[in-house]
């Protein structure tokens, strides 16, 4: 982003303008505005792509390609509508196409980030160990879910997408998202021996 663009769009300088304003500028061909728009959503977009293609390198390529396509498709975006679901739909479409091309299944989730925060420092090493084991157990159960259920759980709980955004990312209706999440939770409960009312 250029220095001028930063002065206009960087929240730390003048306060972030409403997203709609940035969208309008981007639709008029303002590349700085479009870049600013992407900055707001690149993290979620990348993670969504990663959840589908299962490879960081592919997710990076897919997301970048989708961002370029979204720029060309901006005239069709209705100003005032939420931008993120629209963008995620394009990213997810691109990711699904890539996955089909590569014949690659979604990645498994049974890894924990070594560099992740260790949590409450006041907790005992024993408590941390128990938590880590429970997480591993959860990730392993998640990995055994059907792909569509696993992706729905990742989108909702790990990426933090709304129902609408999850629907856009999965290419299904909101009702289908709710059903997939419901079934996934049922399967996880069965795997983990967790009761509904617990």
């Amino acid at each position, binding site marked *: *982003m250029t220095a001028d663009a930063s002065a206009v769009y960087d929240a730390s300088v003048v306060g972030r303008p409403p997203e709609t304003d940035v969208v*309008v500028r981007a639709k*008029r*061909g303002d*590349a700085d505005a*479009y*870049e600013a728009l*992407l*900055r707001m959503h*690149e*993290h979620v977009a*990348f*993670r969504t792509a*990663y959840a589908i293609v299962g490879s*960081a390198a592919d*997710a*990076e390529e897919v*997301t*970048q390609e989708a*961002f*370029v*396509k*979204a*720029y*060309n*498709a901006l*005239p*069709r*975006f*209705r*100003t*005032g*509508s939420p931008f993120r679901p*629209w963008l995620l739909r*394009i990213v997810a*479409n*691109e990711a699904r*196409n890539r996955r089909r091309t590569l014949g690659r299944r979604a990645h498994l*989730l049974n890894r*924990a*980030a070594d560099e*992740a*925060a260790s949590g409450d420092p006041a907790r005992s090493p024993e408590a941390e160990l128990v*938590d880590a084991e*429970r*997480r591993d157990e*959860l*990730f392993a159960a998640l990995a055994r879910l059907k792909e569509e259920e696993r992706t729905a759980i*990742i989108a909702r*709980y*790990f990426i*933090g997408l709304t129902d609408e955004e999850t629907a856009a990312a999965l290419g299904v209706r909101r009702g289908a998202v709710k059903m997939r999440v419901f079934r996934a*939770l049922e399967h*996880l*409960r069965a795997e*983990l021996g*967790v*009761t509904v*009312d*617990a």
Partner: protein
Amino acid sequence: MHELEARLEAAAPYYAFPETPDLAGAARARLTQHRPRSRTRLALVFAVALAAVAGAVLALSPGARSGLVDLFDRVPGIHIERSVSLPEVPYGQAPFYGIEMPLDEAKGHFGRPLRLPKGVGDPDRVYWLQYPPGDMITAEYGAKNGGAKLVFSQWKTGGPDLFSKTLAFNTTAEPAVVDGNPGLWISGGDHAVFYLAPEDTGAGANHWSQRGYLAGNVLAWRDGDVIYRLEADVPKEKAIEIAESLEER
């Protein structure tokens, strides 16, 4: 929150997502210098279908079809044909009328005074569509939740057909006269509207696949070198009354 959901949320920070690279910057570097809209390369692409065709749709007789063709030639710039079925279009976003802007700015783009309905207040939103030749201005009234009570468009003729309507059997079209000018009144639930858009639509598609216009009836007419299109869920007489109330703004 149930235990399992709480466990999932607690586990979220530990899920091994890769670090997000600089995607915005990389994408920016790949953007070409041209604007996302192209005025030079146009393709006819479909945009909307108001509703899915329910049940069987009957074809018209050759005689009836011939009569309709004569009728549909009444308004230059609008081409209408009968179809036994409509394209299946997923519902999603409202149609793209163009770039939203203040009314005064839209006037500047149109290059002449705009004519808008009287007695319905100011439009909630005004859009400018720069392609095809004969810029189109659309005003939305009563806009709410992605819909509107009245959508009024005007564009200059002389360019290629802007709209091409495909009517299913259960849609009717009949002549209408607005201030002595020829027009069409199209009513009924099922019709698709095709319109011009940049060829390079991106997103892997060569057509628009957006939700249709309002679930309303359409009055289209020509006055001089301008075509007007009014859509609202009102009867024909009311639509003509609104159409004949136009005043320069």
